């Protein structure tokens, strides 16, 4: 019977089994070609080399390995964004401990710091949008002496209970849900003050303690950094951070090539990938070269101050000496190096 199934085609004998085999081979080859053409251009991960995939934790790399890793990234990002991208690997400077101070009275809520940070640090522009600084609008309100005898219970008609005071019913200093999306025509608004929040670069950072793969750590200059290649995206650090200062790349970051800042740092503003956590690094690609962070530079009212906490003559130390200073969630004992002050 098999002999009957064979057919002569230009002197070649082809059985049904052979025909299916060849057809299968051709369709597999076509599918493979189609698949490779689909993945090639769009995803950064498609260009990731095996060496990059299997590289060690940045802290454990030798100097030689660091140089190789940086060279690989420079080549990949330069191809990806069509411009010369540099990846810096500068370590922390000696005898420097960075600190930040923000004048809460001066902030006008213009959010120029937010946009300068997005631009400088190559954050995802849309779907999903990532911003490391959040400026939260809060209600101003006033507490007055006149209202102290008011409130529940309405004395003298009700003679029981403890007088809570009329001021207890005022919402002064309350952040309402979604208040960082405010879009007023003009700032500052009459009944609001503004509260910028970003990574506090804690001296005892809880995010570092919980990282199961030790991809996030505190550098000697006090900046808490992340080795993005080593991050497994477990989000433990996000849960541990009391300031909610960390952001997660839910999707592939959208960073247009023309807007990409080509001066990057390995532990800072180099382009990230899907599934990793990122946060403010005090612009270490700038500050480790002796420059101010982008947010300090752009602030139109000079509300932001930055300097070396080990230097008694630095701006931030002078503020600590002379101004009324408070820290956010000081009771958590995280020892934030980001201070809020009032004149």
């Amino acid at each position, binding site marked *: 019977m098999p002999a009957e199934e064979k057919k002569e085609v230009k002197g070649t004998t082809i059985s049904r089994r052979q025909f299916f*085999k060849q057809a299968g081979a051709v369709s597999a080859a076509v599918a493979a070609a189609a698949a490779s053409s*689909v993945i090639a251009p769009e995803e950064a991960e498609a260009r990731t080399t095996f060496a990059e995939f299997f590289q060690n934790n940045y802290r454990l790399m030798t100097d030689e390995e660091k140089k190789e890793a940086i060279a690989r990234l420079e080549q990949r990002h330069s191809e990806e964004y069509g411009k010369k991208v540099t990846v810096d690997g500068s370590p922390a400077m000696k005898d420097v401990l960075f600190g930040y101070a923000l004048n809460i009275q001066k902030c006008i809520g213009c959010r120029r710091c937010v946009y300068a940070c997005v631009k400088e640090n190559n954050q995802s522009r849309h779907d999903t*949008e990532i911003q490391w600084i959040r400026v*939260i609008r809060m209600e101003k309100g006033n507490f007055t002496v006149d209202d102290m005898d008011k409130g529940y219970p309405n004395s003298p008609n009700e003679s029981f209970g403890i007088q809570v005071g009329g001021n207890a019913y005022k919402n002064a200093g309350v952040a309402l849900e979604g208040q960082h999306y405010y879009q007023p025509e003009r700032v500052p608004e009459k009944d609001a003050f503004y509260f910028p929040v970003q990574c506090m670069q804690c001296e005892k950072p809880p995010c570092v303690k919980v990282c199961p793969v030790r991809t996030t750590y505190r550098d000697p200059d006090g900046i808490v950094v992340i080795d993005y290649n080593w991050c497994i995206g477990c989000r433990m650090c996000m849960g541990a951070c009391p300031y909610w200062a960390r952001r997660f790349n839910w999707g592939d970051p959208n960073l247009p090539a023309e807007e990409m800042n080509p001066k990057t740092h390995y532990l800072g503003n180099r382009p990230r990938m899907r599934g990793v956590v990122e946060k403010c690094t005090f612009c270490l690609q700038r500050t480790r070269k002796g420059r101010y962070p982008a947010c300090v530079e752009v602030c139109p009212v000079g509300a932001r101050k930055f300097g070396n906490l080990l230097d008694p003559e630095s701006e931030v130390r002078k503020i600590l000496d002379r101004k009324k200073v408070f820290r956010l969630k000081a009771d958590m004992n995280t020892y934030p190096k980001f201070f809020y002050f009032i004149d």
Partner: protein
Amino acid sequence: MPEDKESEVKREGVDFSKRAFIKTALIGGIAVASGAVIAKKIVSNIPNTGLTNASVSDELQQDRVMKDKEFVVMSKEEKDRMVQMFVSEYKYTA
């Protein structure tokens, strides 16, 4: 004998030779690999509307954090002690 061998290799029209086996294995391998790549591509390209919601939900957490805020102005002693701690605990390790 050659006839016997040939009949062993091609029993009832089925090719049992080493060459044919490798060929089949190779084709099968390519087909499976390309199938997996295409499947992965299709799955990852399905628009996921949940991503934006997840991201927004993350951001709103910060507002909730701010509701638990506590602003206490630091005393002079507290500030000095803190700066002293920063200075004394500073250690540079390359």
